[in-house]
């Protein structure tokens, strides 16, 4: 049995699971086990999804969510890598700052949402702040870890080559920490999506979160499910894209195992 055949078998199996899940969903809807007001069948959800795309409503909501997510995630990545690099490359900072980060990290982001609203109001800026604040942790902690774990021998190589501080960071520390950083960025992607939806719901910002909220209030369950499905697909597609980028950027690691 070769590897390709195994992979295809796994794919076929997971497709079968998904298909039977949708079939079960359709069955429950058809038998009206749950009121159609709350649970549309996959047929109605699909029709609503198509309608939303053809009249452009869903496109603009999707674009809104992607925008919130992307800005927050990028801001978190830049700040997280920069702060993480500063803390991770200095032993003193690691000793004194890292423990308080470990204390802050488990703090639920939802706890700072009221603070952000009080300070920034129900605005895009508030959303950006909350998303970036939530998404920064995995990236920053991964960067600190990655920078702290750089092989000391490589720093000695850099010293004997009299490399500049900037060159050491760009050519040695960052590439060495890149597997950790990219893994952190992948985790943050999901966090950023969740927080985008939360902020859209709370602040009424244009996006899928808002669409889902309005559909629920108006008992348009098919639209509601269309939005939820689209959010699921967004999460899946972005994380697959990130994995592909990781795979490309870390091709050198493949030869190490």
């Amino acid at each position, binding site marked *: 049995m070769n590897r390709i055949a195994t992979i295809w078998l796994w794919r076929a199996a997971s497709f079968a699971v998904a298909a039977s899940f949708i079939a079960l969903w359709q069955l429950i809807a058809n038998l009206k086990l749950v009121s159609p007001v709350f649970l549309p069948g996959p047929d109605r959800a699909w029709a609503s999804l198509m309608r939303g795309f053809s009249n452009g409503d869903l496109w603009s909501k999707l674009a809104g969510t992607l925008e919130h997510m992307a800005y927050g995630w990028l801001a978190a990545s830049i700040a997280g890598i920069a702060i993480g690099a500063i803390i991770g490359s200095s032993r003193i900072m690691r000793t004194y700052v890292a423990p308080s980060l470990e204390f802050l990290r488990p703090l639920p982001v939802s706890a700072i949402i009221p603070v952000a609203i009080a300070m920034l109001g129900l605005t895009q800026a508030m959303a950006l702040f909350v998303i970036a604040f939530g998404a920064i942790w995995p990236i920053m902690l991964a960067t600190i870890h990655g920078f702290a774990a750089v*092989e000391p*021998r*490589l720093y*000695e*190589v850099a*010293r*004997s*080559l*009299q*490399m500049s501080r900037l*060159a050491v960071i760009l*050519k*040695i520390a960052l*590439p*060495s920490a*890149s597997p950790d950083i990219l893994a952190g960025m992948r985790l943050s992607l999901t966090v950023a999506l969740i927080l985008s939806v939360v902020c859209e719901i709370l602040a009424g910002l244009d996006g899928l979160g808002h669409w889902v909220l309005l559909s629920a209030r108006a008992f348009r369950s098919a639209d509601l499910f269309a939005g939820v499905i689209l959010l699921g697909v967004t999460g899946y597609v972005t994380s697959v894209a990130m994995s592909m980028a990781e795979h490309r950027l870390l091709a*050198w*690691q493949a*030869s*190490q195992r």
Partner: protein
Amino acid sequence: MANAAKRFEVIPGQPRPQIAFSGVTLRLGGKTIIENLSLGVRPGEFLCVVGASGCGKTTALRLAAGLYQPTSGKVDFDGQPMLHPRREIAIVFQDYGKALLPWRTAAGNVSLALEAGGMPAAERPARIEELLRTVGLPGHAGKYPAEMSGGMQQRLQIARCLAQEPKTLLMDEPFGALDAMTRQGLQDEVLALVAASGATVIFVTHDLDEAIYLGDRVIGLLPHPGRIGIELAVNLPRPRDQLSTREHPEFLRLRRQLFDFIKATEQ
């Protein structure tokens, strides 16, 4: 041994040592690791350092590299105090697996030294190819270190060190982890490279035969704290040859002397 410090003082009319330890003492973590070490290495000399495990060979080499600063005494390079590591001094680490950048190919690893030396990007590929050919790695430019054998990785590290165009090459048991055949091949390659470049070499090894085979001079260190216990001039003809040099009566005599010294230190 009391006048060990005197022995290496610069004598007028003699060439100035390229690397000079004068009364160097190093304490690390409250322990004296090297004590009152004085040693001059002439330009172009091949000096081998032997000694029991833990006697301070690596530490002495790191002092010569500028990676450690002495607690007292001083290390000079070309008559200037050595305050930090410098590009003219290249160091070949024993653990080649850790000293190479795993995310860079063989060419990229050599390039690191050229970049540090400020060579324009356009001139690098030709130089990289030349260096990889010199160390016997032509055609492996695109391989990552993890795709290479131990011997190839150590060759690559040597290529990167040569890219620094060093005046001094420091080698810390560079062949310690390699099998006997690879080792002998690399010994001859290093001798040829050094002869061609005229670099000064300090070569640390556990292997007494290797030390005599390669060196112009062999020093043996005594442990706790590290200091010079024996010094032997190796008057064997060059170029050396794996068979005839090792059978030379002088080789056998030196080998015996060094062996007795090491045995005595282990008691």
